């Protein structure tokens, strides 16, 4: 039993080392296929990360009139918070607004001087609203503009940003659904290409398989080395694909790439590096081993008239 197990591994490795050309070719094809799979996985993850970062930056500010009382503003805040689609509401009092303004523009001499000249606090109190979906902003705006507090509201900056926010959310949805469809198609292509490569490699072995059967080798004794080959080539292809992406990611992130770096485009890779390693190596092994099993099975069937 142990003898056979050891022999199956030995034969598998022997086939790889004695057919280096074919083995390298197969590894290269699986590597390309895995790059498709890995690339899609990364691009989807990175885009979603990027969009999530951008979405997080989207908010709507409601500015209140100068004479609006703080308790009224807090009442509005409480009402808005009850909306299920609202993620977060932040109250910014006149004082807080001034403080932030001063902090932000402390180096701008002209602005600071103008502020001193005015004497009083010119900044309005406001509510900063973050919603889960873009469509919610419109409802919220309608509620505020037509509700009982419309008289204390100076303006809502939703309408100014409406176009860009809606565009962002539509891109986000397109990436989520389209990305998924594209991933499926690319994964399918990768699987088909790998299957065909391995099928051709095993096709060239069909006479040897026939000979082994005539000598009295059991199906598992014949199948085993091909499975081992699939396992080894899949492992190496996966490892190379992972190292390739790792190298590319390191190269790109070290250059920063401006806004993409700032928006966490590369964080996705770093956060999911272990998962990605498992996907690449595991994917390589599964595709290649399964393809070998399926391809060799065709020649193990006993067909008789």
């Amino acid at each position, binding site marked *: 039993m142990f003898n056979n197990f050891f022999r199956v591994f030995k034969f598998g490795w022997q086939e790889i080392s004695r057919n280096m050309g074919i083995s390298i070719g197969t590894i290269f094809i699986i590597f390309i296929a895995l790059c498709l799979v890995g690339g899609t996985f990364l691009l989807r993850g990175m885009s979603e990360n990027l969009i999530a970062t951008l979405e997080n930056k989207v908010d709507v500010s409601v500015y209140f009139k100068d004479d609006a009382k703080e308790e009224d503003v807090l009442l509005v805040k409480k009402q808005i918070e009850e909306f299920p689609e609202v993620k977060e509401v932040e109250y910014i009092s006149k004082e807080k607004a001034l403080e932030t303004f001063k902090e932000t523009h402390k180096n701008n001499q002209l602005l600071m001087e103008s502020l001193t000249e005015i004497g009083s606090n010119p900044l309005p109190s406001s509510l900063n609203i973050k919603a889960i979906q873009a469509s919610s902003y419109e409802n919220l705006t309608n509620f505020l503009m037509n509700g009982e507090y419309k008289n204390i509201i100076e303006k809502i900056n939703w309408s100014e940003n409406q176009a860009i926010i809606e565009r962002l959310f539509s891109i986000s949805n397109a990436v989520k659904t389209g990305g998924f469809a594209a991933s499926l198609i690319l994964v399918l292509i990768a699987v088909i290409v790998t299957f065909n490569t391995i099928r051709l490699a095993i096709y060239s072995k069909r006479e040897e398989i026939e000979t082994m059967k005539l000598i009295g*080798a059991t199906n598992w004794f014949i199948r085993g080395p091909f499975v081992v080959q699939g396992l080894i080539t899949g492992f190496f292809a996966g490892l190379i694909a992972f190292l390739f992406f790792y190298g590319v990611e390191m190269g790109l992130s070290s250059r920063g790439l401006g806004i993409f770096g700032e928006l966490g485009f590369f964080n996705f890779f770093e956060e999911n590096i272990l998962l990605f390693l498992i996907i690449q190596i595991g994917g390589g092994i599964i595709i290649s081993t399964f393809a070998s099993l399926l391809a060799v099975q065709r020649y193990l069937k006993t067909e008789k008239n």
Partner: protein
Amino acid sequence: MIYFNNVTKVFSNNCVALSDISFGVSDGEFVSIAGKSGAGKSTLIRLLLNEERPTQGEIIFEDINVNKMSPSYLPYYRRKIGVVYQDYKLLPQKTVFENVAFALEVLGKSESEIKRVVPQALDLVGILDKASNFPKELSGGEQQRTALARAIVIQPRVLVADEPTGNLDMITTKEIVKLFLKINQLGTAVILTTHNREIVNSIQKRLIVLDKGKIIRDEEKGRYYL
């Protein structure tokens, strides 16, 4: 040991390859099966190895009904028969030693036994000095010797040779035939198919002549003539 009982084989295109064949082969016997190309010699071997099923009749090997065995038993059945083909059927990625060792590895023999037995088989067929060569580095005769070593190393009950000298020159052919006779003397039954009159007549053992799928002669120490 082997019985063909009223065996008929008709292929799907209605081509009758064998018609009502009956004969037996005893333990340790040497049987030549001669006939022109297309007489049904190879079909007969394929039926014995259960590569094909007979349309009618039955084939018995020892106490096994060859055509009724389960597919899972087939490999174990084939290990009882050593086979040599015209095209050698060696594994090109394995050396001579590994090709012969493979037959023992299939049987699950230990490495130490393989290291002991394979050189003996190679020595018997006179190819020990080529043990580490690959098949493509050998002549036709050397390849056939390797195939023969692989067939006998498992100590089969019967050695089946399907036109083993078809691709060889006359001198090599004679050497290979001598080897078959030697193996037979050591106690293994031999079934040799050929269309070569000279070989059959030099062997001077039992001869079955096939023509158009039928046995037309079955003689002890027979001579082949057309």
